């Protein structure tokens, strides 16, 4: 329990209504979307202004209480699971879009703005914010920045970090630090913005974020290519890139995922196919036509059994519906869904697909794989029931091996879900001891009491 006096202090900052103390309220902030044990916070605080946020950070630090900033709690690596007895700081009331600048192509937002709402607001002004993580209808921009979230458009448009131009953030003492700005070019001082993106709330607390906007593509064309072998699909991906074409999205679905989606939607997917590629090219209409024709040809040359090019908006929607269905359909198969995001250089996708096949057999597990083939970011999805202890041990062993194999192929632990608590123990393996020590030294100076989201990213 949090001391009464301290609760009063928080109430003085954010108002009584914005300090949650009941057991039911606390328990509902004891988890996020990761398959990890709950941890009960001592208090939940919901600042409604920038000033309140700064004072909240300072009060936590003055009292050496661990604090975890939380938006919508959709984190898949446990980054928003609090420390037991710690404080959860909600950004959900800090949800204002402060500026959309159509002349200089940037926007300034508070961290609690919902990603898809922001994208829609931007689209109303004829502009485009490309990062589109799977949870965009609920995720917050603050969370996206803290995790450096990706999405389907990563291949051509990059990920969240490519759109963060600057920010203001509170250091652990509650002092407001300014970094980056509203200009395309800005080399003033250390690149704190770069450091803060993907820091998972361990180095500071975002106050406002300045995001880059781009003009939207004028046209787009989607297609679905069907393959008899995963290798043919993978070779096609390599051939498309080698032909100097950069599709906006280039997604892969394996046979298990295809069958599960078809079983779910009954949209007529080829259930005998070993792999599907879902491809979209966008840009100037003439270029889209040309690229689409080339991609179609490359698919056929690489033994695609068939290629279906969407003729209209309905057909285009059908192509992407299949992709959107992948996770929901897989999630319905078994009670527990472990969604991984180990990522490899895209040329190694065939090896990674083969490795996943081996792992599924070796540990006798059901793994459906889909993902962003174009950028090497696969989502092997393990379907299990965490109540089955024996199987759960095999799941944990399989996860270990997925990371081993991805790293051996020159890949990374996480393409877009973050390290959080789930993957912190593997960090040494990927980055080496020096990187961990360097991180710790930096952290000990910037957060001497270790209150900023402890237990995440750097451990040991």
């Amino acid at each position, binding site marked *: 329990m949090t001391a009464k006096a301290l609760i009063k202090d928080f109430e003085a900052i954010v108002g009584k209504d914005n300090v949650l103390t009941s057991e039911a309220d606390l328990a509902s902030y004891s988890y996020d979307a990761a398959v990890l044990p709950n941890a009960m916070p001592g208090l939940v605080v919901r600042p409604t202004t920038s000033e309140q946020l700064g004072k909240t950070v300072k009060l936590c630090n003055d009292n050496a209480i661990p604090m975890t900033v939380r938006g919508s709690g959709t984190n898949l690596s446990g980054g928003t699971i609090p420390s037991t007895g710690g404080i959860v700081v909600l950004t959900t*009331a800090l949800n204002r879009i402060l500026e959309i600048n159509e002349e200089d192509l940037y926007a300034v937002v508070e961290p609690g703005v919902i990603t898809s709402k922001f994208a829609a607001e931007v689209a109303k002004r004829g502009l485009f914010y490309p990062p589109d993580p799977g*949870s965009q209808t609920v995720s917050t921009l603050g969370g996206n920045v803290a995790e450096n979230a990706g999405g389907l458009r990563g291949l051509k448009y990059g990920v969240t970090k490519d759109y963060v131009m600057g920010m203001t953030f509170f250091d652990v003492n509650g002092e407001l630090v300014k970094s980056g700005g509203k200009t395309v070019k800005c080399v003033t001082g250390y690149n704190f913005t770069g450091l803060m993106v993907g820091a998972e709330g361990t180095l500071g607390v975002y106050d406002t974020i300045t995001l880059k906007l781009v003009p939207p593509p004028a046209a787009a064309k989607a297609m679905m290519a069907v393959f008899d072998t995963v290798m043919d699909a993978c070779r096609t991906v390599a051939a498309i890139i080698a032909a100097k074409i950069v599709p906006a999205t280039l997604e892969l679905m394996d046979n298990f995922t295809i069958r599960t989606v078809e079983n779910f939607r009954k949209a007529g997917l080829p259930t005998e196919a070993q792999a599907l590629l879902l491809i979209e090219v966008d840009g100037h209409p003439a270029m889209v036509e040309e690229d689409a024709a080339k991609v179609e040809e490359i698919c056929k040359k690489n033994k695609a059994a068939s290629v279906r090019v969407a003729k209209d908006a309905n057909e285009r929607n059908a192509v992407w519906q299949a992709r959107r269905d992948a996770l929901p359909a897989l*999630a319905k198969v078994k009670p527990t869904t472990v969604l991984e995001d180990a990522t490899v250089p895209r040329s190694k996708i065939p090896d990674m697909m083969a490795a996943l096949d081996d792992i599924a057999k070796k540990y006798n597990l059901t793994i459906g794989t889909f993902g962003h083939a174009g950028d090497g970011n696969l989502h092997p999805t393990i379907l299990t029931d965490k109540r089955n202890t024996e199987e759960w041990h095999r799941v944990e062993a399989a996860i270990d091996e997925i990371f081993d194999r991805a790293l051996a192929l020159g890949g990374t632990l996480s393409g877009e879900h973050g390290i959080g608590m789930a993957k912190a123990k593997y960090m040494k393996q990927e980055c080496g001891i020096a990187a961990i020590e360097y991180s710790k030294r930096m952290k000990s100076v910037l957060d001497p009491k270790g209150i900023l989201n402890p237990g995440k990213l750097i451990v040991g």
Partner: protein
Amino acid sequence: MADPKKLVEMLKTLEDQLVTCMRCGMCQAQCPVFAQSGREGDVTRGKIALLTGLAEEMIKDPDGVNNKLNRCLLCGTCEANCPSGVKVTDIFLRARAVMAAYTGMSAAQKLIFQKLLTNPGLFNTLLDIGSKFQGIFTKPVDDILGTSCARFNAPIIGDRHFKTLAAKPLHADVPSLDTPAGVSKLRVAFFPGCVVDKIYPSVGHAVLKVLKHHGVGVYMPKGQACCGIPAISNGDVASFQEMVKKNIELFRKGDFDYLITPCATCTSTIKKIWPTYYEDKSDQVALAKIVEKVKDVSAFLVDVLKVSPTDIPGTKTVTYHDPCHLRNSLGVTAQPRTLLQATPGVKFVEMTDAASCCGSGGSFNLKFYELSQEIGRKKAQHVIDSQAETVATSCPACMMQITDMLSKAGASRKVRHVVELYADAL
């Protein structure tokens, strides 16, 4: 009961369903209550986590969890959009039954569910008396909407702008019907539902007029009981059984092709809740027949009688609000719109977020009126912004809520059932 051990045991029976939630949190985009409060305990993922915590004895305060559990409109929007297909309504109804058994029901709840709603004769008599005397306590506030408010401070009424009880309920005008099939060669059973019978008898008359017009025979037995949703959504499973049984007894005697209701909630309760929760095995054949035949009135008119849009452009602008229980539970969204487009003189206009909940939620409105109003105000604003003269819908409970909200906003828009507009034009 109030035995914590027993509570845990009963909650454990929900475990197989609770575990299907993968905690992705996508329900945050759907939940009207969460949209207002922004609190995780108000969204489905939070409620499921709390029930799990209680079942696993990680949480010690059942009352706190119960309070969160009740802060749900049972609109089903999260369930219709859940990536893992969690059976949310089923979990919550069962959990409410567990909680009601644990904490017990209030005296008022017992009176309403066990004595009144299970006893149609007594319920009707009491409300008939009420309708004669209500003018003493209430005064009209809006002529177009036909709303009233309290003359003096009355705790139940609060500051509601409500539709008063009809001077003459439907059952007083039409106690029962048993007419043969006409040109359509069809005969339907008619289940008006409590709100239509007592507050909006005009909707019931409209349905009867339309059925007559299309040559459809009607079987409308006397003494229909409530569909049971108020009881089961408050955890009173026993009263629910009694209500359903009364209705099965009445309707098993009739010979009909469809069972028609003008109430979205009654339709979805009969279709989805009856077969899941009605326990008496000896009635299962009769139950299955009713469940198979139940249809929303506009779905019947459009899908069965093939009523189709007219080509003649209308001038009277009408927008449509999707009742959650038609849209989310039954997927009925096109037919009421088609019916409006088939109504001569109507110019149909779509409003923003037609599918968002009006915030009524039956007894949710009584328990959490402030929250219910906050949600309802948004809906009223969408109606106003649509510039339509009339907002039509397919559920009398939504009609009451939208009427209250529009009346408070001082917006004189008419609130009608789609079938009333269609009947007017015949």
